[in-house]
């Protein structure tokens, strides 16, 4: 009995043509407005995706360029290359150089300082 009471009373629903027409017009207007909003938003942001793609491509290109430059630096700074350059420019190994031993005389002492017997004081007043 209680469950029966909870069901809507269909006999009292407004199912007239005028009411349905009004509802249809209202919903159509809302749908059109939403569609317009979506199309407008899409139109306004249409350059975002191409720009993003271009940025991604540029990032990839820059990453590749960075990697290649790093590689170039590593190649140029390789120890074998530095060694070849050093020898080609007349450098020699420190350990392989001729060594000679020599005696050096002591550095002459500076003249003794003149002993000062007076004390000079300067006072500056602010």
């Amino acid at each position, binding site marked *: 009995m209680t469950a029966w009471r909870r069901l809507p009373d269909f006999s009292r629903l407004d199912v007239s043509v005028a009411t349905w027409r009004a509802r249809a017009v209202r919903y159509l207007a809302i749908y059109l407005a939403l569609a317009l909003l979506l199309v407008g938003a899409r139109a306004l942001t249409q350059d975002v995706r191409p720009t993003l793609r271009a940025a991604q491509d540029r990032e990839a290109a820059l990453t*590749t360029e960075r990697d290649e430059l790093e*590689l170039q630096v*590593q190649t140029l700074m*390789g120890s074998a290359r530095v060694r070849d350059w050093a020898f080609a420019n007349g450098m020699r*190994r420190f350990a392989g150089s001729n060594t000679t*031993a020599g005696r050096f005389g002591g550095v002459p002492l500076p003249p003794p300082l003149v002993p000062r017997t007076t004390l000079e004081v300067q006072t500056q007043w602010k």
Partner: protein
Amino acid sequence: MEVKIQTRSRWMQLIALVLFMTLVWAYAQLEWGVPQGVKRSVVQSRGPIVARDGTVLARSVDGERVYPQGALAGQVLGMMGATEGLEGLEAAYNRSLEAGQPLRLTLDPATQSAAEAALARYVPEHEAQYGSVVVLETRTGRILAAASYPPFDPNRWRVYSPETRRNRPFLDVYEPGSTIKALVVAAALNEGLTTPNTVYDTPMRRYVGERWGSTIGDSVDHPERLTTQQILRYSSNVGMSHIVERFEPERMRDYLSDYGFGDYAELPTVTSSTGRLQPLRNWNDLVRATNAFGQGMSGTTLQLAAAYNVMANDGRYVAPRLVEGEPAGERRDVLRPATARTIRTMLREVVKEAIPTQAGLEGFDLMGKTGTSQVSLGAQGYSSSLYDSTFAGIVSYPSDTPRVTIAVMAHGAKRGHHGSQLAAPIYRDIASDILSRWGAAPTPPPPEKDEEAKP
């Protein structure tokens, strides 16, 4: 109606043909090479290989595997095929590199390039076929350099022959010749069988062994009686045969084995050769004598360096290491520290007296021993024209503080094939380079007596 059906069936045939050709194309892609996108991502995500100081030796750039240092340590690194390592470390550590993990080596690029430069200078100069060098850090066993000649650039690996790609210091097995003498003398000193000043009768030739014996001879003229020190200085085979006369074969073989000969160098993952020690049942007087001067046994340059490192490291064997972070290999005491110090003094004298200009540097503490061995041709005996020139030595700085051990081998020299002519200068150049980079100051020569007498 019939025409319409025919037209439709033609269209269906065409579509079926296109679909079939698509299948053929896809299959061909899989069969002849993986799809480019897959290859690119596999290569790109592969971990780099770096040297001890962070220098990049191999990395992936823009979908390609590149080796920025060119031929530096090329044979050690190996190379990469389409998607996986084919040789060297690229193959040995393929799985971890594929997982993007970096591989840090113990190699020191400056030492490696010094070793390669020395080989590149002397091996062609002596018209030798190939050569190899290993440099070890004395205390830790870290491999600072593992060089092969001719050079190999993994960036262009397809143009090189398999022989050139060979990682010679780890793989080439040869008879080390007279370099072994220092190791055997050290073992005899350790066993109390000789002293540096023990005197032996040393004719230029001597018959060793009984029924199956043979005559051994010396190539360097020397006095008829030599001390143990002089036996090393003149590299006397006859003298060595006397020193080992009272050496129990089993003990002597154990020493050689403890030095690392006849077994793997305990480098995890990396391929290396074992060389060969004769089984104990074959040991007779002749085998004992020939083993005492490095014939009838074989090893690699890596093993020779590790063995000399025992003398440098106060008698302790340290397994060589190539990859940082891996567990250290076995350590074992082979010689007493006092014995190691004695043999180092003897080796220092060898350089000073016999090869001061070839292997020595004025004011620096260098020590080592040369070797010149005829190449074994198996059952045909020894070649009369093919030689291996070897040198193994230690670099100390400050004096008697060994820091680096170096082993050198050059094969098949047509001019100046003696160890003192070819391998020793390679050692000297590498030592010079290492000492220069350390900024090591030479020890001044002792003042002359008349100068000392002056007030």
